[in-house]
């Protein structure tokens, strides 16, 4: 068949939905939290919005002695509990037809033979056309064996002929625990799949508000002129969580805040904040700009001055008495894993030279908040009496990522009924009041993009490696340092060393 364009599609017809083609999604690790709370509900929401092809199959793979209807029941439960859109019987009927389950272990060849047979049957019965996406919602230690099994059973992309359909793999963070292991992981995955068939999910990049950063920066005239060292004094990027490690001891210990979120989410936010304008929003262009800015990013020369790490201690947090990190179940008493990580990075280019980016990520903070704050330089001259401006801070532009997505602008205004007294006020734009009450979940967008083979929102392995190159020296420094992470009371804004790190530069953290 010739590849002539589809006559029903038209670039001007913007309301015509982007709908996935025929395909099957194979989910490894269906019983995990992520699968139940995010992935399965997102698949249902996509179906409910009419974005999944009628020829769609969903295959669960897990170490459970289940039949397909057990699995379907579990899917229904997780959809009812966690889906964004209401549960509808007709949509469910559509999905149910394509649901299959394969019991087995990852190292069990027979199980993979069954998977091959199940997919062949789906291609036949559902018309999924040999298009398969493998979602590895499993611990990274198991990636290796899973991709290897897929390759050996002819399910991975390599060695497929034309017209046999596509094969894609989806992996979740962490992408390694340092540069060497990330490269090792990349080597294994790329042994089975082509680079363009590997989708690394960083769910932050699927968030509407993160995508809005691109619109904010590149669709407006107002902000670009101040987006440089002439006007910006420094940038603070915060990702605070109010919870502790909450049952994730096995995963978290030995990983810590820097590997868990700075390497991926925070450095991606740095890239989106600091990058130059891409010539288009194509994956290649976007990737090129992000990679350029990450390559120019480096940690402080003296890491003992430009980093801080801490561990939460037992305290009252938000009216609740909570234990310290070392007393959490499953954490060794001598653990040196940091639950608070703060680092200064500098970007060596014309736009940002001399503008530090301070990143901090932590658990057991006073509240849950993620934001990017651009702190402007003070006005060069203030034609006021000193006493008039004692309450005046510096201007700030804050992009709130979550919760309460929006943008805040802080500036000085005259206090009414005074001679002349200037004080800081906030001008707020809340995403939620001007747009959708319920915007699509990040996973909906990302899963649909995987099925469509649309890669702009997924970090490539070069970006992952560039991030590790920034972080590795910091991690080494902490590992070699004689000082353990400094304690901070749970429910506070972090250890003294974190505050001192900014104080040395004559700055302070803003209270988000």
């Amino acid at each position, binding site marked *: 068949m010739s590849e002539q364009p589809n006559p029903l599609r038209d670039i001007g017809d913007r309301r015509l*939905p982007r709908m996935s083609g025929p395909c099957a999604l194979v989910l490894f690790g269906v019983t995990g939290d992520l699968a139940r709370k995010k992935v399965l509900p997102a698949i249902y929401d996509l179906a409910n919005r009419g974005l999944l092809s009628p020829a769609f199959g969903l295959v669960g793979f897990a170490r459970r002695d289940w039949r397909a209807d057990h699995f379907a029941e579990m899917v229904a439960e997780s959809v009812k509990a966690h889906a964004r859109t209401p549960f509808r019987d007709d949509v469910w009927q559509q999905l149910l037809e394509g649901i299959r389950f394969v019991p087995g272990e990852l190292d069990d060849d027979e199980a993979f033979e069954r998977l091959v047979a199940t997919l062949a049957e789906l291609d036949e019965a559902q018309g999924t056309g040999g298009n398969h996406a493998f979602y590895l919602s499993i611990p990274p230690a198991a990636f290796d064996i899973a991709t290897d099994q897929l390759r050996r059973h002819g399910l991975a992309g390599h060695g497929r002929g034309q017209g046999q359909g596509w094969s894609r793999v989806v992996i979740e963070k962490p992408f390694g625990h340092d540069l060497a292991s990330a490269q090792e992981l990349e080597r294994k995955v790329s042994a089975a799949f082509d680079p363009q068939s590997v989708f690394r999910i960083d769910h932050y990049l699927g968030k509407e508000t993160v995508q809005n950063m691109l619109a904010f920066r590149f669709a407006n005239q107002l902000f670009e002129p101040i987006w440089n060292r002439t006007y910006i004094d420094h940038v603070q990027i915060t990702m605070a969580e109010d919870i502790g490690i909450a049952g994730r001891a096995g995963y978290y210990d030995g990983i810590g805040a820097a590997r868990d979120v700075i390497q991926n989410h925070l450095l991606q936010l740095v890239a989106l904040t600091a990058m130059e304008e891409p010539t288009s929003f194509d994956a290649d262009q976007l990737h090129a700009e992000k990679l350029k800015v990450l390559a120019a990013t480096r940690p402080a020369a003296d890491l003992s001055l430009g980093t801080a790490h801490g561990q939460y201690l037992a305290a009252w947090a938000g009216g609740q008495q909570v234990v310290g990190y070392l007393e959490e179940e499953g954490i060794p008493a001598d653990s040196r894993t940091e639950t608070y990580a703060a680092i200064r990075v500098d970007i060596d280019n014309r736009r940002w030279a001399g503008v530090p980016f301070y990143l901090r990520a932590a658990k057991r903070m006073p509240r849950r908040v993620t934001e990017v704050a651009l702190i402007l330089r003070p006005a060069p001259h203030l034609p006021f009496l000193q006493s008039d401006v004692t309450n005046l801070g510096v201007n700030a532009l804050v992009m709130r990522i979550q919760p309460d997505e929006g943008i805040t602008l802080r500036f000085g205004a005259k206090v009414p009924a005074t001679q002349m007294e200037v004080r800081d006020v906030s001008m707020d734009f809340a995403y939620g009041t*001007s747009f959708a009450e319920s915007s699509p979940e990040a996973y909906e967008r990302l899963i649909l993009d995987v099925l469509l083979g649309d890669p702009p929102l997924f970090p490539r392995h070069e970006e992952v490696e560039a991030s590790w190159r920034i972080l590795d020296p910091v991690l080494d420094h902490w590992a070699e340092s004689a000082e353990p992470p400094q304690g901070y009371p749970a429910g506070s804004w972090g250890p003294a060393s974190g505050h001192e790190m900014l104080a040395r530069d004559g700055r302070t953290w803003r209270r988000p």
Partner: protein
Amino acid sequence: MIIELENTNAGEIGQRILTARDRVGVPTGLVFTMIVVADQCDIEQVVAAATDAGREHPSRILVLRDEDGPTSLDAQLRVGGEVPGDIIELTFRGELTRHRDSVVLPLLLPDSPVIAWWPGAAPARPADDPIGRLAHRRITDAMGSADSIPTLIERAHNCGPGDIDLVWTRLTRWRGLLAAALDQYRSPVRQAAIQATPGNAAGVLLAAWLDSRLEIETRVADVVGSYGIMGVELATDAGRIRLNRTDGSMATFSAPDVPQRLVALPRRDLNVLLTEELRRLDDDAAYYATMATLAARWGGEDDEGLDR
């Protein structure tokens, strides 16, 4: 908070809504003004749909209706609570029914888009209507009139930038499925046929869309049923692609060399249609092309009568 104003004017309404906002602390980030011309239709249902759509796009909603009686204007303002933006219901009587725009104009939100929606009967040329002239986007609904196909064809003859009819919005899912089907079968479509219940405007418009894209003449056949469009069939060189709506919510999809599939294809509620419409306030080129095809196809004997 509900405020009733009798015998009022635009100035007082504007003042009261400002003070009410201060008191209930409703955010001021309203994104547009929607004027609902609710003559001869179910006010409750229309307001519910508009409010629901407003949840996605908080807005000021002006509901206009006429009543008999001596010249006067009553208003009911609703702010805060369940209401995402503010809702102003205006009742016009007497001479004021011919000067509704004079009340509406001062109540439009600054800068932001204005949308006019006629859920029931609409003027023949919405763009020339006094209320329609105030709006950037004029939403009509041929299904809201007694005789929907002639109404839609008349709209097609008068269609201009900014006009849209909800019959088009009803087609989005059908169009999406058909386009997705042709993504799989890239071979020319030789014939197309639609089955729809008699007098169903959506069937006619879908046919016009297929005609405009495929350069064929789609047949529309009347069938007995109660779900509007009941089926679509495309005959391609590779074989037949069929979508059959078996009931009000499910359809079957069949195509060459693949098994028949079930697909959810529910009829969509008014609020869902309106929400989709409000998401897209840019001009819809595909709609204009389709309406032009419809006008050309039905431009025959009674052309003069329609194209005033």
